[in-house]
C-alpha cells in the first residue's frame, strides 16, 4: 500500500507537470461542450429551393408564397425551365426543385387534381428526406385549404394525429447531444491517456527500471489506473456543470447513480487503454490503435445515429462496445430520470467490460520479455 501511494504521488506529479496534457484534459472538454452542441444540429433549416413555375396563375403564386413563408425554405431562384432548375442543383445553389406544370390552376379547378414534380438533391440524405417531407406537408396543407374554399362546410371524416414529445418536449437537439458529448469526453480521457502513458514509459525506458524493482504488477497497474480515473471523474464533473450552466440541462435522475455508472465505465475504458499499451511498443502505435477502436466505438455507439435503425449485425457490434451502453444510460438518467433498477442491465455489461479488459491487460503486462 505504501508503494502504491508513492507510485500515485509520482504519477500525479508527472501529470501536473505536463502543461500541455493538462490543458487538453481540462480545456478541451469545456470547449467541446460549448461549441459542439451549438454547431452540430439536426434541425434542417434554410433549404434552398428553386421554383419552376410554368403556370403563372394565382394558385401557383399562392402555393409559392406559402412555401416561402414556412420558414424552412429559401427560394433561391425562379427558373424558367426544369432543366435550368436542375442546373442550380448541380451547381449546389439549390437543394430542391419544385416544378409547377402549365395549366396547374385550370386542371385543379376543372378536374379536381393536379400533379407537381419535386426533384431532391439526395447527397445529404437527412437534408433531402426532411426537405422533401416538409414540402410535401406544406403542399398537403395547401391542398386542404383549396378544398375547403370550394366545397363549403361538409368536411370529410379524417383521422387527425396529435403528438407530444416526452422527456424533450421541444425536440431540442442539444438535449440529445450534450449528454452524449459528456460520454465522448470521458472516453477520450480514459482511452487515450492511459494507453499513451504506459507506452511512454516503455519508450523512455523507465519501465525497465520499474521492472527490475520488486514492485508487483498490480501495484504498477493500479498506480496507472487510479490517477486517470480521478481525472476522468473531474472532467465528468466539469462537463455536468457546463451542461447545467450553459444549457440548463439538470439531470432528472439521481446524480449518485450517474456517478456510479461513470465510475464503472471509466474502469472499463481505462482497462481498454491499458490493454492497448501492453501490446504497443511506441506511442504512435498506441495512438493509432486506440484511435481505430475509439472511432468505431463512437460511430457505432448511437451518438449520432439511432441504434434501432442499424441492421442486426451492426447492432451486435454496437453492443460489444462499452461506449454504446454508457451513452444510452447517460441519456436515460439525465433526460428520463431512470433509476438504478432501470439501468442495472447496462451496469452489468459495463462491469463485465471492466473485469475482462483489466484482467486481460494485467495478464498481458509482463515484466520479463
Amino acid at each position, binding site marked *: 500500500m505504501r508503494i502504491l501511494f*508513492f507510485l500515485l504521488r*509520482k504519477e500525479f506529479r*508527472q501529470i501536473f507537470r505536463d502543461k500541455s496534457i493538462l490543458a487538453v484534459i481540462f480545456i478541451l472538454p469545456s470547449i467541446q461542450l460549448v461549441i459542439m452542441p451549438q454547431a452540430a444540429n439536426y434541425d434542417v433549416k434554410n433549404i434552398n429551393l428553386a421554383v419552376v413555375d410554368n403556370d403563372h396563375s394565382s394558385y401557383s403564386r399562392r402555393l409559392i408564397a406559402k412555401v416561402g413563408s414556412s420558414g424552412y425554405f429559401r427560394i433561391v431562384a425562379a427558373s424558367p425551365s426544369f432543366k435550368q432548375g436542375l442546373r442550380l442543383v448541380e451547381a449546389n445553389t439549390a437543394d430542391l426543385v419544385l416544378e409547377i406544370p402549365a395549366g396547374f390552376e385550370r386542371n385543379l379547378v376543372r378536374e379536381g387534381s393536379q400533379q407537381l414534380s419535386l426533384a431532391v438533391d439526395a447527397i445529404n440524405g437527412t437534408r433531402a428526406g426532411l426537405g422533401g417531407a416538409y414540402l410535401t406537408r406544406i403542399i398537403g396543407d395547401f391542398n386542404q385549404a383549396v378544398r375547403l374554399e370550394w366545397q363549403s362546410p361538409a368536411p370529410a371524416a379524417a383521422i387527425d394525429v396529435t403528438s407530444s414529445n416526452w422527456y424533450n418536449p421541444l425536440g431540442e437537439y442539444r438535449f440529445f447531444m450534450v449528454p452524449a458529448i459528456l460520454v465522448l469526453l470521458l472516453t477520450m480521457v480514459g482511452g487515450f491517456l492511459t494507453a499513451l502513458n504506459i507506452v511512454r514509459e516503455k519508450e523512455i*525506458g*523507465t519501465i525497465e527500471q520499474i521492472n*527490475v524493482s*520488486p514492485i508487483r504488477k498490480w501495484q504498477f497497474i493500479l498506480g496507472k489506473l487510479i490517477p486517470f480515473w480521478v481525472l476522468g471523474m473531474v472532467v465528468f464533473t466539469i462537463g455536468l456543470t457546463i451542461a447545467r450552466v450553459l444549457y440548463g440541462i439538470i439531470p432528472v435522475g439521481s446524480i449518485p447513480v450517474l456517478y456510479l455508472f461513470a465510475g464503472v465505465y471509466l474502469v472499463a475504458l481505462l482497462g481498454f487503454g491499458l490493454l492497448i499499451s501492453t501490446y504497443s511498443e511506441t506511442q504512435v502505435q498506441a495512438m493509432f490503435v486506440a484511435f481505430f477502436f475509439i472511432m468505431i466505438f463512437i460511430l457505432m455507439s448511437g451518438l449520432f445515429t439511432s441504434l434501432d435503425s442499424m441492421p442486426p449485425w451492426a447492432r451486435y457490434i454496437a453492443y460489444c462496445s462499452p461506449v454504446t451502453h454508457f451513452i444510452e444510460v447517460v441519456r436515460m438518467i439525465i433526460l428520463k430520470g431512470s433509476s438504478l433498477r432501470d439501468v442495472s442491465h447496462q451496469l452489468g455489461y459495463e462491469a463485465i467490460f471492466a473485469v475482462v479488459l483489466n484482467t486481460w491487460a494485467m495478464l498481458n503486462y509482463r515484466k*520479463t520479455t
Partner: protein
Amino acid sequence: MGAVTLQNIRKTYEKGTVLAVDDVSFTVEPGELFGLIGPDGAGKTSIFRILTTLLLADSGTATVDGHDVRKDYRAIRSTVGYMPGKFSLYQDLTVEENLSFFATLFETTIAANYDLIKEIYEQIEPFKTRRAGQLSGGMKQKLALCCALIHKPTVLFLDEPTTGVDAVSRKEFWDMLGRLKQQGITILVSTPYMDEATRCERIALMQSGKILSIDTPANIIKAYPGKLYAVKADAMHPLLHHLRAYPAARSSYAFGEFVHVAFWDDQADDDEALRQYLAGKKHTGIVIKPITPSIEDRFIDLMTAAPANAHATATR
C-alpha cells in the same frame, strides 16, 4: 559460489534467426569488478538483461547471488541494481524526486543508505531541484548511478555507463566504481571502450555473442602471441598495403597515426629486415618501434584469429 554465474547461456532473437548470445559461461566472484568488453552488437546488453531478469534465455542457467534468474527472479529484483545503457529515469521529475522514488520502490529511504551514495550525490546535490531531463550527460550518469545504488544492492549491473560521456567524467566514473568495489559490492560493467578495460579486475572480451577470452587485463595482454611493432612512413596507404604482403607479418592494421604489425610467434625479432623490405618498396620517413600490445591489440588479434563471422572492423 560466485556472485554471478552463467552456464551455457544462449539467446536468439527474431525466432532464432539472430544469435545474440552464443553458449556463454563465466563466473564473477563476490566483490569483483568485472568488465564485459566488446563492440556494439557483441551481446553485452542481452547478457545484462538476462541477469537482471528482464529477458529469458533460450537455454542455459544463470544465477545472481545464488538465485536462479528464472525461478527466483523476485529475490534478484530486490537485491540487484541495474543501470541501463540508455538514460532511463523520469525526465520530468527532479533529481531529488527521482532518487526518493526509486528508494521507495525498494521500500527504503535516501537517508538509510546515504553513506553509500554520499560521495556521488554531493556532486549533483546543487541541482537537486532541477528536472532530470535538463541535466548534462555526466550528471545524468551520476544520478542514474545513485538511483541504482540507493537500495544498497549486492550486485550492480552497469550497461555501458560511460558511453556518450566526456573523458573527464569517464575517469571520475571509474574512480567511483573503484571506491564502490571497496564497499564490497560486486560490479558487472560493460563497455565498448578498450582503454577502460584495464580499470577492471577481470574482463571478458566478447564478439558476436561469444566470449573470446576471460582473464585479468594484464594476463590478457601477456597472452599476446609474437612481437608487435608500430610502423610509420610518409605514404601511409601504400605502407599498409605492402605490410599486408609482408610474409613475416601475421596481421597489419591502422592504429592511430601508426600501423600495428603483428609478427608470427615463431619469427625472430627482425625489424631490420622489415625496414629493408619497406625501403625496397621506396618508402621514405620510415619509423619502426617495438611496442607493448594493448587490450585492443589483443582483441583484434583474437577477433582475426576467431573463425568465420569475425570481421576486422575494429580499426580506428
